[in-house]
């Protein structure tokens, strides 16, 4: 592994047009890296929400970074609808590929296993399926009693990104029970991670931590970014700043409000740290 990259280094390592796997707000969201992507004016990103998008994806869309989005849903949770996502879909500013949670998980599992597709029950009769020409319906070839079944092509993200509480000095990353992060990293060609801190030692050397660890073999770069999920929480480690998220949900409804929010919060991380700590 190289010397520790900054958030801006990591953002620069995600090329325009990349297919980027992005975690949901109940997982470990890379908000600091998201702000860095917006600062570098990333363009044409194809985002894959795994499987639901939240505030980070809404900010990327509103900032013009996104060409296409595949997601089972995008929302700010209890703060309400994701305003910039909603606007962009209604304006046709992004291409939206509507999916459903287990279809995204399964398509990534196909990549994990190195097989070209994965079958999944359900879906038949849904307009989600009707609008996904690449999803194929076949008769159960093994006659195992499943009737018709849908085959989902494997999804190979170019890059997976997330923010974790910590990594060890060997480059192994703690993900705990957030196993969708392992699925993303296994399926993606490259994985870039930010962490609150690097801890000495080796997480894989201890049986009590090994099972919650993403091994370094899947991880290309790790950057240190304290409060790197803010204002989203890190489940088990940091609570979300709900008031801030609710304020964003209101502000981002208008173009001026969104621009105002972004100009205040997508500055250099040092300036942002002052806002977070105040």
């Amino acid at each position: 592994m190289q010397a520790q990259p900054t958030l801006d280094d990591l953002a620069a390592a995600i090329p325009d047009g990349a297919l980027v796997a992005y975690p949901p707000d109940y997982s470990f969201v890379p908000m600091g890296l998201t702000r860095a992507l917006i600062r570098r004016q990333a363009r044409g990103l194809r985002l894959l929400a795994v499987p639901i998008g939240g505030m980070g994806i809404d900010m990327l869309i509103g900032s013009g970074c996104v060409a296409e989005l595949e997601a089972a849903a995008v929302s700010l949770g209890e703060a309400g609808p994701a305003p910039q996502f909603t606007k962009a879909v209604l304006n046709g500013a992004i291409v939206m590929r509507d999916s459903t949670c287990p279809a995204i998980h399964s398509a990534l599992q196909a990549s994990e296993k190195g097989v070209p597709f994965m079958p999944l029950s359900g879906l038949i009769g849904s307009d989600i399926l009707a609008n996904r020409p690449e999803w194929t319906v076949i008769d159960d070839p093994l006659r195992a009693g499943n009737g018709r079944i849908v085959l989902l092509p494997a999804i190979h993200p170019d890059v997976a990104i997330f923010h974790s509480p910590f990594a060890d000095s060997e480059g192994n990353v703690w993900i705990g029970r957030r196993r969708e992060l392992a699925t993303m990293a296994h399926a993606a060609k490259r994985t870039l991670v930010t962490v609150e801190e690097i801890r000495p030692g080796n997480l894989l050397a201890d049986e009590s931590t090994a099972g919650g660890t993403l091994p370094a073999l899947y991880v290309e770069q790790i950057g240190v970014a304290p409060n790197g999920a803010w204002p989203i929480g890190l489940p088990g480690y940091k609570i979300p700043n709900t008031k801030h998220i609710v304020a964003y949900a209101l502000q981002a409804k208008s173009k001026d409000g969104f621009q105002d929010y972004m100009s205040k919060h997508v500055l250099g991380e040092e300036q942002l740290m002052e806002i977070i700590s105040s």
Partner: protein
Amino acid sequence: MTYSSEEFLICTIARLISGVGHIAVGAASPIPGSAALLQRELSGGNTRVSLIHGQANNPFSDGGRELFDCAGQGRIDVFFLGGGQIDGEANINLVGVGSYPNLKVRFPGSFGSAYMYFVVPKVILFREEHTRRVLVPKVDFISAPGTSPDDVYRPGGPQALVTNLALMSFDRQRRLFRLESVHPGHTVEEICDNTGFEFDIPENVPVTPLPDADCLSRLRSVICQEIAKTYPTFAERVFGFGSLP
């Protein structure tokens, strides 16, 4: 005993899900979540409840996929779904209003509905708003169909629809809702006026039972504390829990 509309809905839903083994509840569902926890309490702990929102009462340790894998195996008996639109054949729309992809109104998206509706035996449709805007003749986008042809694997599907006006059951053979009861203070006429699809109306439609004192007392003593771990704002608003000194 007086009660809030939320307490009424929680008790109404809890009655629908008695005697089952495992109830799972999706994100942003405080009323179904409270109903599931109340049912667990009433069952003496025999019913398992899994809330995927947050950490509390969330048993899953294998990431976002696990709820769906679990449901696909038949390990989940009850799940809750809603819809921006729901039609008379129990098709649900969580995507938007208008001609997809050129929508006039966009909702968040289908979440796991296109799978869970197929594999969970008892799906309770829950939507507080009971209007012709929501309960439409035909949904604009089918996130998940209410029924499926015989050659599609479908152990699951809709069992009932609960709104702030009424309780309906769903007959999968006839693909038709049936009005089971009308909530106190409302009339069959009002239900007809506010429902955009055809449904069965029996000759005698009872009033939905009021919450009994036992359920209300359990809600206010035990469940309020339990649901506060997942939905603190809801617990404070509905039960005043957390606001006490």
